[in-house]
């Protein structure tokens, strides 16, 4: 497999094998548009995201090493303190119980904790309680959104300065937006709870998506740096070659990035149940896959499309066409003689 993968890389590099990422942009953009539409409609139809307790406010208890996984014990423990409460008791993983309630006072939270300790026959060291004020989640979200805006703004400026063209910034950001929206859509479809951990995952996907695009764009920059004097390929052709030449890197990087995340998602989460790691890794898992694809299928073709109308490049494309016509004529010559 290695050798065939190496050959694959060689052929991509030499141009013997080439996928037309740039030329077929209409197809990719259409697919992206459909995926985005679904990603927006799905949560809308479902009535929003499944918000975690951090955003709803309330209390959560996690009891480890329980002797029985009888959920009525948990319900009773809650009702003993607050009669009208509607607790959600679930056996999350192994012998771990999770009990969530609506907004309780801080004091009630502690009393329920004591109740659960005796109900499940565990020691105080095995019960975790979390009390979350109703404004906490909004606080986290607000700050995350501010962080997102600041980061995107700065990253756009950084990329525009480094690549000396704002069109790369715009294309990279477009790829990022596609990544984020689809990741959010998948997250909504999975019905996982949106917790601050998931928000962390989203922010990382944001950074990963731009990071991946920068690597590919740097190769595009390199390939197109002398476009004005070259007649070998059109601008779009150079962009496409760059994407093909970095395709092996994209695949390898994606695999290496996604393997540890998949390990957390499928192994860690299976053993641990819901929690920081699972929420984070789902967002990352989806985001890394989509982010890598968005760079190749969205950001690069969009960049080629944004620039191909520039007068210099139109002129260059004509030169390429005329040289090619000449080359074709030259090639047909031997056949006629």
């Amino acid at each position, binding site marked *: 497999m290695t050798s065939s993968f*190496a050959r694959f*890389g*060689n052929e991509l590099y*030499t*141009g013997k094998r080439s996928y037309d990422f740039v030329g077929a942009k209409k197809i990719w953009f259409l697919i992206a548009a459909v995926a985005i539409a679904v990603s927006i409609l799905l949560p809308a139809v479902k009535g929003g995201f499944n918000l975690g307790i951090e955003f709803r406010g309330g209390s959560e208890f996690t009891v*480890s090493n329980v002797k029985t996984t009888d959920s009525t014990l948990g319900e009773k423990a809650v009702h003993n303190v607050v009669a009208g409460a509607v607790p959600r008791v679930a056996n999350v993983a192994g012998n*771990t119980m999770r009990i969530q309630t609506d907004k309780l*006072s*801080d004091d*009630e*939270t502690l009393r329920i904790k004591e109740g659960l300790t005796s109900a499940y026959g565990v020691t*105080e*060291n095995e*019960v975790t309680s*979390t009390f*979350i*004020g109703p404004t*906490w989640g909004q*606080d986290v979200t607000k*700050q*995350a959104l501010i*962080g997102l805006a600041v*980061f995107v703004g700065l990253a756009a400026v*950084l*990329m525009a300065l*480094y690549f000396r063209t704002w069109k790369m910034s715009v294309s990279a950001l477009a790829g990022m937006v596609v990544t984020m929206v689809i990741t959010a859509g998948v997250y909504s479809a999975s019905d996982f709870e949106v917790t*601050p951990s998931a928000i*962390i995952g989203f*922010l*990382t996907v*944001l*950074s*990963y998506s*731009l*990071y991946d695009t*920068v*690597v590919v764009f*740097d190769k595009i920059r*390199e390939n197109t*740096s*002398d476009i004005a*004097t*070259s*007649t070998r390929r059109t601008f779009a052709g150079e962009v496409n070659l760059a994407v093909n030449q970095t395709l*092996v890197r994209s695949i*390898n*990087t994606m*695999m*290496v*990035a996604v*393997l540890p*995340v*998949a*390990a*957390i998602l499928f192994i860690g989460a299976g*053993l641990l149940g819901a929690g*920081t*790691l699972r929420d*984070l890794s789902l967002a990352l898992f989806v985001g890394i896959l989509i982010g890598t694809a968005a760079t190749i299928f969205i950001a690069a073709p969009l960049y080629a499309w944004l620039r191909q109308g520039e007068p210099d490049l139109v002129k260059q494309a004509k030169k390429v066409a005329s040289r090619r016509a000449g080359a074709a004529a030259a*090639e047909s010559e031997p056949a006629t003689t």
Partner: protein
Amino acid sequence: MARTGRKNPARRVLIWLVAIFAALTAVLGGGVIAGHASWAPKLALDLEGGTQMILAPKVEGSSEINEDQLNQAVAIIRQRVDGSGVAEAEISTQSGRNVVVSLPGTPSKETRALIQASADMNFRPVIAAGDGAAVPVASRTKDADLPKPTAKPTNASDNNWVTADVYKAFEALDCVNPSQDKQERSDPAKPLVTCEPATAQSPAVKYILGPVEVKGQDITSSTFGPVQGAQGSVTNDWGVNITFNESATKTFKAVTERLNQYYVASQAQGGNDPKAQFAIVLDDQVISAPRSLAVITDGRPQITGNFTEQTAKALSDQLRYGALPISFDIQSEEQISATLGGEQLRLGLLAGIIGLLLVVVYSLFQYRALGFVTIASLVVAGGLTYLAIAILGWTENYRLSLAGVAGLIVAIGQTADSFIVYFERIRDELREGKGLVSAVENGWKRAKRTVLASKAVNLLAALVLYFVAVGNVRGFAFTLGLTALADLLVVFMFTHPTLQVLARTKFFGEGHRFSGLDPARLGAVPLYRGAGRLRTPTEKPAVVRPRNAGAAAEAERRMTIAERRLAEKQGELSGSSKGSSSSSGTKEGK
């Protein structure tokens, strides 16, 4: 296998890296020996177990809290926590808005209450007092009989403060089973209806209080001690001694002059007038309502009566630390059991190790022997990150949280990407027909730019998230930034120098088929194959001038091989008129 004897820049860089490692290890080792640091990184509460409260300070009369007030809030809470005897408590601010209190284990009820207690304290005169229980609805005063103010109140103890509404609220108030709803902070210029909660010594009492006369901030100090008897003898009673600042001394003198009159009058009648009392109100609850037995002219009142050493200390602490108009809302409170924390750490590490193994297998599969360079680089990056975390744990009290561990696991992929970008560039150079040594140099020149640009994006993300975000996000951003830095250091100081050295070895230099840099496997046609072997004449020369000889040399180099062949063909067909064939060899037919 590197050549010895000659000074080799790659080796020098590697030696520097070893020196950095040695220095960091020495710093940490020194800290451990001195007993300040530990080899294991410090763990945050979600991994170690303990309690974390995130409190949002609220300043009376303004929605925003400034840095000064936040620092004061931290100081208050720190004193309260330290005063309560909890060891290893950590109090820090977050994003300039929140106070984070982390305590090992589960805090006692008293500690919790103390931390949360609002620091909004003031002194109000009592207008009326009553039994703690709510007056039964049936026997409440009829609307017609409710007190009606006849004039504007002349002083804070004036009965004219008591309007119909105030009196209704007073009758309805239940201090025996107080409701949990916390209302908005009271207006200091208006009367207040509130409770003194029941204690072990006394039942609950409810009060109608006049407007604030002295504010808590005016307390300069508060102590407690045994009350001295008339002849300086020590009695068994405990008392709390307050000292007011200058302006409050005058105000308090006026207050006690007025209240003392009520006291004297009531004593003459043989009764108790609640109006002789002033209430010390903390967070709109009365914590003590002593009678004014004397006029206090020097601003140093003493509160006595029914105190034990403990209750005297508690009141004194509240007075001292409560002298700031800041209150706290609990944003979140987590009590994480040590069991769950340990479990999360164990599984987080397990997932990390499995992920790492998968990366190792994939790298070896893709890059063969070169995969070992990836693995070694990851190990070096891991080592640097570990040392940084352990040292920061010691000097900056940085604690690794579960989100931080997740950041580390995610970083594996992004760190390895630097090596992948670099290796792919080297392979590209090899495909162009370069020898390994120059492929490494050229590949590095181009990869360096890409790595720097892309890591800049990562660092930017980490920095922005660290400074803007709250809660868990910060711990995550921190490890992400830290690993990005470690990655840069490793690529520059380990991976590249190592490849420079390896390129001179026979195994890699000759492109062994397991080296991952086998030119034949990469489809390259090398000019030079190392060890003095020149290419055979049957091989194609790499450089043939195409028709458009005017194109930049840089562009030339990047022609794809398929194109090169086409160009070659064109050159052939266009004859020798252009003189484009190179002198380096004969051309082979197709």
